[in-house]
């Protein structure tokens, strides 16, 4: 029977995994070890600022296990969406970690580095040629969003990975990638059914999240065969059930029947989830339909600087009329800085105990809590102005004389000294669009390097 075994170590590189689970995976003889390092879930900051949302030491730890095992067993190790957002600084950050591990362990391997950052000029050219389309519910892209972005990445499909594997790469480090690509590339290259390979990758990219009990920090094995695949949680305390794997198919996606990817739609309308044994699930019927090749672009831009102040309130008279007090504070800020145009800053008040979590979606309008958590937030064109606005709003709210006030010494309980925290640059997503391409590899340049005994990086 034809079979390929894919070992997924953890849901996000750096989230960790028990060494016993990893060992159990290795004992089963994987043909490839892969991990997804990225997501847009943590928000626009990480892409915009070019920093990882996962800790360096934690990433080093996970990669160290994977690279050593890959070399011991002569099995390729694939890392996608390097550093979380997969732009150039994230790729270099991860490359540096791999270099340290290779030097310390004296590892030898052929390394492929595939870049995921897309030059703004390339995006602008495609924009001018009408090759960029919106991904609903986003609207059409505007030129200034491209120009204003600090980083733009494209989610590469399996093709750049296949190209690297064909070039003999034993370790592949890639920028922003379609999450299942690292898991599906080798199976598809070897002629396995692309629909099943992609669906299996879709589940493996979250590792043991699809098991019960679920975990983002544990290993999972996929066994792809000719007309089905099997999933096995490698920790004996977890198992895969048709319900747990089926439920995962819904997770974080809009339409669970038709999943769009680079150059295809994965059709799960005929998919069956069955128990294979007590701990494993058999999946069959998933099909892949090719469509014109589009790559998802993600961009983030800087919109200002933030300062916050965290406080609490316990006085029922204050809590009862907090909205009017906030209005009064806003007015005082505007009056005091009447020389600063109001579009130069934003002042926000987050009230935990009222609608701090759901904002305008909160259906419950009355405050029933005996205390409130208050975050005063100022966003401005410069850090100095954000500090000024936040500081003045905080001092004004502390001593604000609202009607019926009994506690005349101060309205707020500050959590910290200093009461105000400088948060730095604020980013927001600027590009979330599709770009039409002819060659799936054209946007993603690759370098190949021979690493010998940890050397060969220059």
């Amino acid at each position: 029977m034809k079979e390929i075994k894919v070992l997924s170590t953890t849901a996000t590189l750096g989230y960790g995994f028990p060494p016993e689970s990893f060992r159990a995976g290795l004992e089963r003889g994987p043909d490839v070890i892969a991990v997804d390092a990225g997501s847009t879930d943590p928000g626009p900051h990480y892409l915009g600022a070019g920093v990882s949302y996962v800790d360096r030491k934690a990433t080093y730890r996970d990669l160290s296990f994977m690279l050593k095992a890959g070399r011991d067993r002569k099995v390729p190790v694939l890392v996608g969406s390097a550093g979380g957002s997969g732009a150039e600084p994230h790729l270099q950050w991860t490359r540096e970690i791999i270099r340290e591990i290779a030097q310390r362990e004296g590892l030898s391997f052929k390394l492929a580095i595939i870049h995921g950052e897309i030059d703004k000029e390339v995006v602008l050219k495609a924009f001018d040629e009408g090759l960029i389309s919106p991904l609903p519910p986003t609207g059409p892209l505007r030129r200034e969003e491209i120009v204003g972005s600090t980083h733009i990445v494209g989610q590469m499909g399996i093709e750049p990975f296949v190209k690297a594997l064909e070039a003999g790469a034993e370790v592949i480090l890639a920028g922003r990638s379609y999450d299942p690509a690292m898991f599906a590339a080798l199976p598809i290259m070897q002629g396995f059914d692309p629909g099943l390979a992609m669906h299996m990758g879709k589940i493996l990219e979250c590792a043991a999240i699809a098991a019960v009990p679920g975990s983002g920090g544990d290993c999972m094995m996929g066994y792809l065969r000719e007309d089905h695949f099997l999933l096995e949680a490698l920790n004996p305390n977890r198992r895969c059930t048709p319900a747990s794997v089926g439920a995962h198919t819904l997770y974080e996606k809009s339409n669970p029947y038709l999943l769009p990817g680079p150059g295809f739609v994965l059709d799960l309308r005929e998919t069956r989830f069955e128990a294979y044994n007590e701990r494993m699930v058999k999946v069959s019927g998933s099909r892949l339909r090719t469509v014109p090749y589009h790559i998802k672009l993600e961009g983030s831009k800087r919109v200002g600087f933030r300062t916050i102040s965290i406080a609490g309130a316990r006085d029922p008279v204050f809590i009862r009329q907090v909205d009017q007090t906030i209005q009064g504070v806003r007015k005082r800020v505007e009056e005091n800085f009447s020389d600063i145009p109001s579009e130069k800053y934003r002042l926000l008040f987050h009230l935990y105990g009222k609608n701090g979590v759901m904002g305008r979606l909160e259906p419950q309008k009355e405050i029933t809590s005996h205390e409130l958590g208050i975050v005063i937030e100022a966003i401005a064109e410069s850090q100095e102005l954000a500090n000024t606005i936040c500081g003045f709003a905080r001092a004004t709210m502390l001593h604000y004389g609202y009607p019926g006030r009994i506690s005349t010494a101060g309205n707020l309980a500050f959590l910290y000294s200093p009461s105000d925290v400088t948060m730095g640059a604020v980013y927001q997503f600027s590009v979330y669009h599709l770009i039409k391409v002819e060659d799936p590899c054209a946007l993603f340049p690759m370098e190949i390097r021979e690493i010998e005994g940890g050397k060969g990086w220059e």
Partner: protein
Amino acid sequence: MGVKLIDIASVIRSKNSGPYELTLDIIFKNREWYEKIKKAKVIHPGLISRIYGLPEEDVREIIEFDPVGAIKINLKRPIVSGNIGDTDIYGAQQHAPLLGVEFSELD
């Protein structure tokens, strides 16, 4: 006989589906309840729009997922994840209004 959604579902959750959308999943405790709710068509854009205070056109889709016995609801985020004023970057705590949903007549 009235029935509360929370009594017939094993999972009620919310999460981002990309930075611009929220996706709500209701996984029913068993096939019977799923089929009953599906047949009665009681989870519809009007209900979701009412409990979230959103215009009906922002309830983008309601999808019945037979393989699992689940209903998925996609909402346009009122504020894009991480934009100024957003209060839930991952969108993981926007499910609560569903917990209070009650159906009076199902048959």
